[in-house]
């Protein structure tokens, strides 16, 4: 059945160009996305990997309606969200949430945890006064944080707790698609593993779809069903994770794999 299902997200020939001034002062065109196409089935994870400047983040911004693509379509649940008016997009945005790399920059430092968590719900007018606190507690519980954090400010939380909070805020509107832009990269290794486990558990429970943007191939291998390798604004290679990483056909994929720092697998301590 799953194979016949319309993918939740289908991107077609997406192009994003920026105008920028070069050092001589004249305007030049920068092609951040040069015709990107892919599809993601509901409840699965697509990892988008590539070096800095390959267009991965621009792709995330376009899909989450934070940037307008120059040309191309973004089909989300059967609608092309690339051509919607600003008003129509307000209804789409809650369903697509974005999580950034550094939670200390994406959480308002002057707000308390409860305000941060509930802001999206209040903006969407989905909450009465009485519902607020229980909803905040439930959201925290979902990401493994306890309710005594509600009145704290983000500065009082550890990096891992802040990223859990950012995930909880993204979950508040019950999105269908979560775009994770280097969401684990700023965390310590042991905390990365905790958040990766949380993401997998949430996906199993809520059936969410993830677009996992990263330069960490090992984490992509662990989390993703499919992987897309980007280079200079184009997808060079795409397919099931295992296939792409074990038998890469493109030079860029081989290079990325070769550059990946890793503890030698054979030398890893055995799991007992």
């Amino acid at each position, binding site marked *: 059945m799953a194979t016949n299902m319309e993918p939740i997200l289908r991107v077609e020939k997406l192009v994003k160009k920026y105008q920028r001034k070069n050092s001589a002062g004249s305007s030049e065109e920068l092609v951040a996305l040069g015709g990107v196409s892919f599809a993601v089935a509901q409840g699965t994870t697509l990892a988008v990997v590539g070096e800095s400047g390959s267009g991965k983040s621009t792709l995330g911004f376009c899909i989450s309606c934070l940037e307008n693509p120059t040309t191309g379509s973004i089909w989300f649940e059967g609608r092309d969200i690339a051509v919607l008016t600003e008003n129509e997009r307000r209804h789409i945005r809650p369903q697509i949430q974005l999580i950034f790399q550094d939670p200390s920059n994406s959480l308002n430092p002057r707000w308390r945890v409860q305000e941060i968590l509930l802001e999206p719900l209040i903006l969407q007018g989905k909450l009465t006064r009485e519902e607020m606190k229980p909803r905040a507690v439930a959201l925290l519980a979902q990401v493994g944080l306890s309710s005594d954090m509600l009145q704290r400010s983000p500065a009082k939380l550890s990096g891992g707790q802040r990223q859990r909070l950012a995930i909880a805020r993204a979950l508040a509107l019950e999105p269908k698609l979560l775009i994770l832009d280097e969401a684990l990269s700023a965390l310590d290794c042991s905390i990365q593993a905790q958040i990766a486990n949380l993401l997998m*558990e949430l996906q199993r429970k809520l059936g969410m779809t993830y677009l996992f943007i990263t330069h960490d*191939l090992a984490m992509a291998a662990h989390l993703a069903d499919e992987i897309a390798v980007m280079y200079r604004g184009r997808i060079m290679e795409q397919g099931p994770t295992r296939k792409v990483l074990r038998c890469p056909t493109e030079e860029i994929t081989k290079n990325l794999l070769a550059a*990946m720092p890793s503890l030698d697998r054979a030398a890893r301590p055995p799991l007992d």
Partner: protein
Amino acid sequence: MVPILEVQDLHVSYNSSGGAPYSALAGVSFQLMPKEILGVLGESGSGKSTLATSLLRLLPSNGNISSGTAFFEGKDLLQASVGELEQIRGKRISLVYQEPSVALHPTIRAGRQVLHVLAAHESERKSTLVRKRRQVLSSLFPEDVDRISNSYPHQLSGGQRQRVLIAQAIACGPSLLIADEPTSSLDPATQMEILDVFRTLRDELGLAMIFITHNPALLAGFADRVLVLYGGRIAELGPAGTILSLPRHPYAKALFQSMPAISGDKTNNGKKLPVITGDSSSAPLPRQGCVFEPRCPERMEDCRKREPAAVNLSESHTVFCFKYGG
């Protein structure tokens, strides 16, 4: 061989506005040989950055070095006068920071910023300094010295900015380089490139290096020895090959196991990663016993009572854990 740096029983604490001072480093001792790369591995709150800043006496105003010695080229850095420190910082010992976009001045061209470092330490004529700058920059940018030199930091890529910082660090010919997470804002290919730069500097200039990171994978094939820090204490210290392939301390073991392997995949593997429960930076460290005890999967009776002492597994390999005696 005489060690270039010898740190003995270093204790550093931070005063906090309410409550007892926070102990960031407690009893850290190690030696560094000339031309050696020591990888310091630790998570946030492990004290790894405090180690870098305390050796150069650049701690924030609430930081205190309460005891210890750090002999570098025959002088105790922890007792040195301000004047002496100014002769050492940037000239004999250089520090390379994590975030090159913050460490560089945004409105001064890269070449000038390298010149500033030279001018601060050498009283030669400007033309001599300019020649020296060219030498340094061309060792890091063999192809386009002039373009880089005339660029503002925002016109350079992350990797290029990091090379400019390295040029500043080596300009005055130091014998020790301390690099605090120098590659963590870079993508993997650029990371490897910068590690290569460091390796070349060691081989060609004979620099010794303290390389601080939270990512054990970066140290594989790069560091000579690894020092694992946890909660301000040394957990394990020994040859990089041994520690990275067969760690003994339960923290190091659990840390390496929590990292996904590249060949894993979800359909087959979809399992949870083994994690270290808890979070060292949110819960206070225990006041008594081993600092890792609350998160340790292999804790024993003794661990809560006192701190483990050093156990020498071999001449060069030390672990602080009761499992091995302690």
